[in-house]
C-alpha cells in the first residue's frame, strides 16, 4: 500500500510494514536531542525517582543554547547542572555553548534520512530538511524517552506543498514561510508538511532548513524534505556516514496525501509578518516606514551562514541608521568561524552591528537583546507572539535577513530591493 515518507519512517520505527494515519503506535527512537531548557534540569530528579539510567548514550545529543551565556545565577546553575549531568552519565555527544540546537545537529552530521528522531524543542522539525522524521516534544516526554528509548505517536496525515519557480531578488525561504503561515494557517496540528518541487530541489540545505523549521509555525508535527544528492553531500561533509541507498527514503508516487498545495514563487515579494502572529503577513510594502527600535538577526531560523550572507549583501558599504540598532547573534560557533573566514563578519562590523553571543538569546526573551515596553523590533526569528522577545507590551515584526538588514539601514521598515537600488554611501569596504 502506498505511503508517504513520514508513514514509512513511522512504520519502520514501530516495526510494521505499513501504518495508517490516525493509528496510535509505539516507536523505537533513533535519536533524542535535548537542550538546557528541556534536558537534565528536568530529567535528573525523574531518573532518581525511578531509580533508572539513561537508555543509550549513543542516541542522545545534548546541547546548551537557551541560557547561554548565563546572564544570571539561575541560568548559570542550569548550565552547571547540565554539564555535571553529562559528565556523570557519560553523555559524550554534548555540545556546550556551540550554537542553537537545530543548527548544531546537522553541523555534526547526526541527522540522516529515514531516522525517527525526537527533540525537546518546538522547532525540532528543522531536522526534517535531512529526510528524517524529527518532531518536538515537552521535557516529560523527553525524560521518558531518555529512560525507555521509545514513545507513542499518532500517525499523522501528510500535506504536500509543491513550490515551483525561483526567487525574485531579495526573496528567501523565510518569505515563503511567512506566505505559507498566511495561506495554510497555523492550525495544522497532528499533520506533517512535506515540501517538494523545483524550487526546493534548487534550494541550498540551509534554506531548506528554514522551510522545515517554520513547519512549527504552521502548527505541523513536523516538516520533511525527501533527501537528494545535496542532502547526502551535506551529511558527509559534516562527518556523518550515510549510504547512497538512503535516497530510497521517499514518498511513494501515489502516496495518500491529505492535501496537495502548489505555490508558484517567482512573483513572491519580500514578506513581513506584523505583530502578533507569523500568519499576519503580507508584502513588505504594506509596512514600509514603520518605526523600528531594534533589528535582530538571530535564531535557528535566521542567523545561519547564508542568512548572514544575505544581511552582508545589504550592509556592504552601508551603515546601520542611528534611528535604530542592529543586533546579530550568529546561529552557531561554526557560523561565526565561517563568517570570519569569508569576510562576512567584517562587513557586518563595519556597518555598525552589535555582535551578540551565539545562542537563543533575545529570540525567546531569555538572553541579551530583550525589548522594553513600547519597543518595536524587526526580526529574522520565527515567532512574534505577544511578549515573545521581552516585555509583554513590545511588538515584533518578522522578515528575512534581507529585510531586517534593509530596515536597519533605513531606520524604519524598508524594502531591501529599494535599499540595494541606492548606491552605497561610500565605496565598498572603504570604512576605516
Amino acid at each position, binding site marked *: 500500500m502506498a505511503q508517504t515518507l513520514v508513514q514509512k519512517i513511522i512504520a519502520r520505527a514501530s516495526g510494521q510494514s505499513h501504518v495508517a494515519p490516525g493509528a*496510535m503506535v509505539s516507536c523505537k527512537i533513533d535519536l533524542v536531542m535535548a537542550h538546557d531548557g528541556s534536558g537534565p534540569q528536568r530529567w535528573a530528579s525523574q531518573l532518581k525517582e525511578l531509580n533508572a539510567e539513561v537508555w543509550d548514550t549513543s542516541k542522545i545529543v545534548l546541547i546548551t543554547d537557551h541560557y547561554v551565556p548565563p546572564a544570571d545565577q*539561575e541560568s548559570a546553575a542550569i548550565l552547571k547542572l547540565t554539564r555535571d549531568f553529562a559528565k556523570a552519565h557519560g553523555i559524550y555527544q554534548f555540545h556546550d555553548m556551540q550554537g542553537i540546537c537545530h543548527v548544531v545537529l546537522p553541523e555534526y552530521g547526526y541527522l540522516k534520512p529515514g531516522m525517527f528522531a525526537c527533540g525537546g524543542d518546538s522547532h525540532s522539525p528543522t531536522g526534517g530538511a535531512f529526510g528524517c522524521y524529527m518532531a518536538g516534544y*515537552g521535557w516529560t516526554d523527553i525524560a521518558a524517552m531518555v529512560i525507555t528509548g521509545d514513545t507513542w505517536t499518532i500517525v499523522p496525515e501528510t500535506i504536500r506543498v509543491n513550490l515551483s519557480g525561483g526567487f525574485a531578488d531579495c526573496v528567501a525561504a523565510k518569505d515563503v514561510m511567512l506566505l505559507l503561515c498566511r495561506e495554510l494557517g497555523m492550525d495544522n496540528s497532528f499533520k506533517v508538511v512535506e515540501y517538494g518541487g523545483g524550487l526546493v530541489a534548487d534550494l541550498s540545505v540551509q534554506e531548506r532548513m528554514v522551510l522545515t523549521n517554520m513547519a512549527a509555525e504552521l502548527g505541523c508535527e513536523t516538516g520533511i524534505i525527501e533527501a537528494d544528492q545535496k542532502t547526502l553531500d551535506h551529511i558527509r561533509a559534516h562527518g556523518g556516514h550515510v549510504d547512497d541507498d538512503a535516497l530510497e527514503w521517499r514518498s511513494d508516487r501515489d502516496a495518500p496525501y491529505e492535501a496537495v498545495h502548489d505555490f508558484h514563487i517567482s512573483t513572491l515579494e519580500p514578506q513581513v509578518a506584523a505583530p502578533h502572529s507569523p500568519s499576519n503577513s503580507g508584502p513588505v510594502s504594506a509596512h514600509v516606514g514603520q518605526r523600528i527600535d531594534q533589528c535582530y538577526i538571530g535564531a535557528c531560523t535566521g542567523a545561519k551562514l547564508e542568512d548572514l550572507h544575505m544581511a552582508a549583501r545589504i550592509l556592504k558599504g552601508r551603515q546601520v541608521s542611528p534611528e535604530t540598532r542592529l543586533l546579530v547573534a550568529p546561529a552557531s560557533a561554526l557560523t561565526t568561524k565561517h563568517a570570519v573566514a569569508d569576510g562576512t563578519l567584517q562587513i557586518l562590523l563595519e556597518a555598525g552591528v552589535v555582535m551578540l553571543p551565539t545562542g537563543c538569546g533575545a529570540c525567546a526573551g531569555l538572553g541579551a537583546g530583550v525589548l522594553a515596553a513600547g519597543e518595536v523590533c524587526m526580526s529574522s526569528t520565527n515567532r512574534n507572539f*505577544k511578549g515573545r522577545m521581552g*516585555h509583554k507590551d513590545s511588538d515584533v515584526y518578522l522578515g528575512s535577513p534581507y529585510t531586517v538588514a534593509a530596515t536597519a539601514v533605513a531606520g524604519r521598515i524598508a524594502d531591501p530591493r529599494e535599499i540595494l537600488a541606492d548606491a552605497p554611501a561610500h565605496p565598498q569596504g572603504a570604512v576605516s
Partner: protein
Amino acid sequence: MTGRAWVYGDEINTDLLAPGYCLRLPIEELAPHCLEALDPDFAGGVRQGDIFVAGDNLGLGSAREHAPGALLTLGIKVVLAKSFARIFYRNAINLGLPALFFAHAHEITMGDEMDVDPVAGMVRNVTTGKQYQVNSIPPHLMAIIEDGGLMAHLKKRLAS
C-alpha cells in the same frame, strides 16, 4: 469534575500562557504571570477545580511544559478546546491534565458553571443546562492521566 469556566479565543499561545521572562522561575512563581498579557485578572481569579475553555489551536508555539503546568498549578482541572497544538496536548496529558476536543467552545460564557467527565466524554454547561457529547480521551492516554502523569505512569511500567 465541576467548576467555573474561563473562556478565551483562538490561538492562545505558549508565550501568553508562560511568558519567556518567567521561564527561569519555579512553576509556583511563574503561574501568577499566566495569560497576564491577555487577561490580567485570570491568574488571580482562578479557583481550584476551574475549567479552561479555548478556541482553535490552544497552546501553539513552544514546547515549554510551563504552559499546561501553569494552568494546573493555578487549579485548572480540565482543558477544553476546539483544537490543540500537538505538543501542548501531549504535555497536558503528560502532566495529568485532561484535555478534551470540544467543538462547541464558543457556546460557553466566562463564568458558566460546567460539569465535565473526560472518561465518558460528557460536557455539561450547568448554567445553561446544555449537554454535549465529545470524544473521550483514548484509553492509552487516560491511563497516563489516571496514574497522575507520564512519570508516575512510567514508574508503574518499570515496576511491573
